[in-house]
């Protein structure tokens, strides 16, 4: 059951499990009758379907229904709103601010996912080169970052970039990089988003790094060695040997990161003290403000539905990749 010849990449455990499952299936086919055989898979999957339906499907259905209703404060109390068809969506399409927010969300996601993947990959590669002691230190650090609750992380970052007492302004000034005393990082959304991006990427790196490191360590040493002997430098080895082998992991991590970063809410909401300026609105924030601050629950729901739709596309890529991994092994 050791790692097979070159063609069989990575995951020996997975391959073995699949093989066993296939054997089991065959055996079952011989011994059981038709009806039971037909129903068994459905019976097995039923509990998950029920749970997913209850905690995800039903709320989603309600969200969708809400987005077709006029639903404000009065309707909230009456607990029913009149059906207004696509009005909320029509308003959305003609809302200039909505398109600004969508564009901002896309750019934010792109930058954050990009930085997370690049830095995560670099740190994972570093992990493969480190000795045991340093690897332990770095891994512990990563786990600690991962274990830090968002609320705590936001408060730490807020203090670091505080305009009056922040360590960042102090350090930059002490380094004679200019006068940063009383520099307010959130006065300009560009520097404000730099802080938020640092916070989000910082929090996302551990998962990416540790997963990639696990992937990298599955790459057979012989392949890397062979490539080096053939004269490939580190970059060539990564591009032509390591990367193709762990590509499925990359695809999964990227689609997961997109799903996460696309819906960032807590970090922005908390770092701007529960009242983010319009320049800081991403789709999640916009939806929340419309629904819960302005009492436009129907309109807020429509924004959320659009968000869910966009997210489904990203999830689709993720799920397809998962299925494909299952098939090819």
């Amino acid at each position, binding site marked *: 059951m050791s790692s097979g010849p070159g063609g069989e990449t990575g995951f020996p455990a997975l391959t073995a499990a699949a093989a066993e499952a296939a054997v089991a299936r065959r055996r079952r086919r011989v011994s059981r009758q038709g009806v039971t055989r037909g129903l068994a898979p459905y019976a097995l999957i039923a509990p998950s379907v029920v749970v997913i339906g209850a*905690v*995800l499907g039903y*709320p*989603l259905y*309600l*969200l969708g*229904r*809400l987005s077709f209703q006029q*639903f*404000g*404060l*009065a309707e*909230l*109390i009456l*607990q*029913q709103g009149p059906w207004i068809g696509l009005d909320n969506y029509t308003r959305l399409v003609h809302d200039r601010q909505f398109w600004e927010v969508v564009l901002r969300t896309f750019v934010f996601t792109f930058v954050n996912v990009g930085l997370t993947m690049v830095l995560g990959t670099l740190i994972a590669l570093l992990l493969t080169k480190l000795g045991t002691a340093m690897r332990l230190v770095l891994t512990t650090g990563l786990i600690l970052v991962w274990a830090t*609750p*968002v609320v705590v992380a936001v408060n730490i970052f807020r203090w670091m970039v505080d*305009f*009056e007492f922040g360590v960042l302004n102090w350090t930059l000034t002490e380094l004679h990089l200019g006068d940063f*005393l*009383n520099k*307010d990082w*959130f*006065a*300009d959304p560009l520097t404000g988003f730099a802080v938020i991006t640092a916070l989000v990427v910082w929090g996302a790196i551990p*998962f990416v790094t540790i997963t990639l490191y696990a992937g990298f360590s599955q790459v057979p040493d012989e392949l890397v060695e062979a490539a080096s002997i053939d004269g490939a430098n580190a970059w060539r080895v990564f591009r032509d040997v390591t990367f193709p082998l762990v590509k499925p992991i990359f695809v999964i991590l990227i689609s*997961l990161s997109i*799903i*996460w970063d696309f*819906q960032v*809410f*807590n970090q922005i909401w908390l770092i701007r*003290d*529960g*009242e983010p*300026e*319009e320049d800081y609105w991403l789709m*999640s924030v916009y*939806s*929340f*403000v419309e*629904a*819960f*601050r*302005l*009492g*436009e*629950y129907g309109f*807020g*729901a429509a924004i*959320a539905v659009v968000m*869910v739709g966009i997210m489904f596309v990203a999830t689709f890529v993720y799920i397809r990749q998962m299925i494909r991994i299952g098939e090819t092994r």
Partner: protein
Amino acid sequence: MRRRYIGALALVAALTVSAMTAAVGSSSPDRQNATKIVIWLQNDAESNWSSVVAATNQSFKARHSDVEVDVQYQTWGDHLTKFDAALAGGNAPDVIELGNTETTRYMAARLLQDITTQRGSFPNSRTWLGALKDSCTYRGRLYCVPYYAGARAVIYRKDQYKAAGIRSTPKSLAQFRAAGLKLMKKYGKQRNYSALYFPGRYVWASMSFVYDYGGKIAVLRNGRWQGTLNSPQAIQGLTALKATVGPLSRANKTGDEANPQQALVFAKGRVGSFIGNGWEWPYALDKKDGNPALAPKMGAYPMPSHIKGKFMPTFLGGSDLAVPITSRNKSLAYDWIRTFTNNTQMRQLATVGKVIPNTTSLASLHARNPQLAPFANAAKASWFIPTAPNWVQVENARVLQNMLQSIFTGRSSVQAAAKRASDQITTILNRRT
């Protein structure tokens, strides 16, 4: 990873909460013989006149020994979001304190109990402050009981003024600015010193400049609301505001007056003056968070207008007490309000809390007290927000805060920021809700 999934689900779930309750919450169990009333008061009461609340509860309990009173303190930032959710969920409080700018929306939506017929049973109902009574009245019906009012004045350090060579308190905006520059010259070398501590998102003090120059936030024309912050007068006011605050304040341009509490920043010593409510004076002297040693060095005067000898209009803020229609203990709720607003408690509220009591019959309390008189004087010239049912949504969307921040950080010109805010206000106020 799981943590972030939960975050994602939380948003979707949050958005569907209202719909969920629509489906499951319609059959509310009728809890008879309830022995508990829930009161939502703002945290100002907790930090400044908790003794009044305690005395009220004691007196109330003396009459209703079987009733438990649960006072829950709320913050201005999110109490309405919570209130809306509580209304939908059927667990709204029996008594809620609402800011006088927040009542119209709830009165218009008929979510507060109409108390017109019981009016006479509330203490001092004949002499309630006009401005507060108005904020409780919608289409001729009464929906809440005035609680207290507050006016802002300049709270300052007498010792610093003297040391900087400022002989008398400023009588015009120009003099105020000149005095501020003297303070900056004397103390400005200290990092973080502000002659006038004025955070960028301080709406209530900022809008006074607009009204001082004859501007308004919005007006009602032919049944339609029109944002007017981009009128020439309002622009003039906002420009004067920027010219005053810019050189005199080193406060956070992206923060507001409550985070951190400006009175406590003042107590730390590196502030010459700030524009604050009456209750912020004693708050600066708080034994735990403030600095009691400042007591003999503090003074207050009404903010001067750009016209010499006049006062700048101050925002007449205040709070009312209402009973949501969902309350199942309305008569107990009324009785608690009656106890809380009777003469004994109002007198305490005025002297301990340093706020303007809900009745004109106690006005003399202020005239005689040097710590209260400047605020009572300032209240003689006042302005109020547009009384549109949707006004509170302008507050909830932080339209004015965002405009001020853009102006103070220089992110947009006064004109551009005012135009944008004005358009937003027009849209929000005319929305059908």
